[in-house]
């Protein structure tokens, strides 16, 4: 079948800027606050003792995306990935939470459930404490190589034009032998990265999807063409690249759509410098489903053949899911059979049907850090 390979570029997404910035008292002179103030000279700033005041009480989840809160992280920065649920094969991923929520508006986003009670977009001012925490873990386990990502509760790069956070993270990880940092994004805010030397310790990855899903469900994000162009640029600058085809959405024409997305993603990329590619089916808790239903526009993805699984989340029923994974695997292996692939939040039985075997958790993690 002939696919339409015209560029998907629409109007370039404008860099996100908040309507108001709230700063926790005591953090107004932090380096992060100074950088954000310098980048947003016309934006009102409010200094408050308790940043709970910045939460959009009664205004809904989306109001949280229009404000930025700069505050200290008082808990641990480092957590095990919440996707590591009992019964699922887990890739032993660690998450470093440098903030929470995201300026983009993907209809399927789990943060609508996870951050329902505190949706104000936050960036933490004491990331140096987080890096000290990471450093302690890396020193305590020199025999292990860790994969640590910042893109779980926030897009890793969407605020980088305001925070310059990558300029703190990349040099730190570039100097560590036993960790890989993953910066996961749907943005193209890569300008800071191009001037840093990752020394093979940083993977910049993009969440990508079929063009129809990007257009219908990923509000405010960059186009696929913009993401792919950014991937090519950062790879040229010395970074490893990753792609996450997640969530896979069963929609009319999904085969053509995902094949097209794969072809576009790897066009003009050196596949030997691809650290990993993940696949994950659309999954939702009952609360997330309710949040999606409450959105102003009905999301067509709710009409997929979703059924409840043993973990309480709805996914496309298993036969169709396995079929989708197998097709994706086939197309990805046609691109380069050596690229490390994994699937996210699936039980061993699904891995067996897709890959022919179900690895132990530690084995998945080992495969993903063992790439050249």
């Amino acid at each position, binding site marked *: 079948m002939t696919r339409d390979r015209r560029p998907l570029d629409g109007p370039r997404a404008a860099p996100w800027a908040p309507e108001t910035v709230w700063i926790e008292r005591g953090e107004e002179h932090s380096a992060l606050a100074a950088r954000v103030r310098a980048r947003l000279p016309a934006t009102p700033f409010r200094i408050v003792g308790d940043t709970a005041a910045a939460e959009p009480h009664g205004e809904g989840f989306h109001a949280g995306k229009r404000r930025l809160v700069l505050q200290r992280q008082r808990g641990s920065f480092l957590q095990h990935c919440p996707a590591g649920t009992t019964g699922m094969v887990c890739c032993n991923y660690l998450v470093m939470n440098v903030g929470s929520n995201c300026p983009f508006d993907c209809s399927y986003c789990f943060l609508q459930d996870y951050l329902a009670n505190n949706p104000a977009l936050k960036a933490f001012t004491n990331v140096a404490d987080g890096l000290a925490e990471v450093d302690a873990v890396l020193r305590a386990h020199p025999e292990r190589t860790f994969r640590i990502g910042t893109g779980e509760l926030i897009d890793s790069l969407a605020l980088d034009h305001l925070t310059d956070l990558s300029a703190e993270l990349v040099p730190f990880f570039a100097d560590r032998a036993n960790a890989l940092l993953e910066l996961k994004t749907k943005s193209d805010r890569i300008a800071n990265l191009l001037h840093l030397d990752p020394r093979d310790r940083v993977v910049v990855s993009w969440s990508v999807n079929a063009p129809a899903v990007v257009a219908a469900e990923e509000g405010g994000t960059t186009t696929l063409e913009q993401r792919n162009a950014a991937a090519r640029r950062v790879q040229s600058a010395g970074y490893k690249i990753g792609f996450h085809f997640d969530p896979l959405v069963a929609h009319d024409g999904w*085969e053509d759509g995902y094949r097209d997305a794969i072809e576009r993603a790897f066009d003009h990329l050196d596949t030997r410098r691809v650290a990993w590619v993940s696949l994950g089916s659309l999954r939702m808790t009952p609360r997330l489903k309710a949040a999606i239903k409450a959105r102003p526009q*009905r999301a*067509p993805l*709710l*009409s997929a*053949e979703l*059924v*409840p*699984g*043993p973990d309480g989340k709805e996914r496309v*029923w*298993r*036969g*169709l*899911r*396995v*079929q989708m994974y*197998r*097709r994706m695997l086939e197309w990805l292996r046609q691109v380069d059979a050596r690229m490390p692939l994994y699937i996210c939040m699936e039980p061993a*039985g699904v891995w067996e*049907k897709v890959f022919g075997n179900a690895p132990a958790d530690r084995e998945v993690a080992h495969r993903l850090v063992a790439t050249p």
Partner: protein
Amino acid sequence: MTHLDIRAYAAARRYSAATTERWLRIEPQGGEALLEVATALRLGENQLRGLWEWAEEIAVRDGLSLAQVLRHESILAARARPLSRNDRLKLVKAALRRLRFPRLVATEDRLATLIGALGLPRSVRMTLPDHLEGDEVRVEIVAQDPAALRAAALALQAAADRPGCAEIFRLLGGESHDHDG
């Protein structure tokens, strides 16, 4: 008129205010079609919400109105069967489920046919995982004496050797029976 009818029905069945108000907010033809189904099947609030949710999801996916989904010929036929209210409700739910999960139901149908063709005696029952979310079947044997147990085991062994049995496990493993991707 329909608004008054909806209010009257919802009040009589003690529906919550939230459900009633939501019902009144949808476009009139959809509200009316929902009232037809509710009245015909004497639906309680949770039953109505379940059918409504599926019907809305079908409507979004297929570009239809809620009324068009609820007045689909398969739904009307199920409603019109000369059966008890409970049996008609089951048929309506099954018809709606068939529209909501077309590929899943087609696979379930194929699996039911294959299981039927295994020729298992009534003492042996093969059960599929809920929503086909799994690749294991559960087999239950009922026997009152060793001879009945032996006969059931032999029938099961013969069934396991039939080509249809292998197809059952292939389908559960994610292979498409219609090869339509």
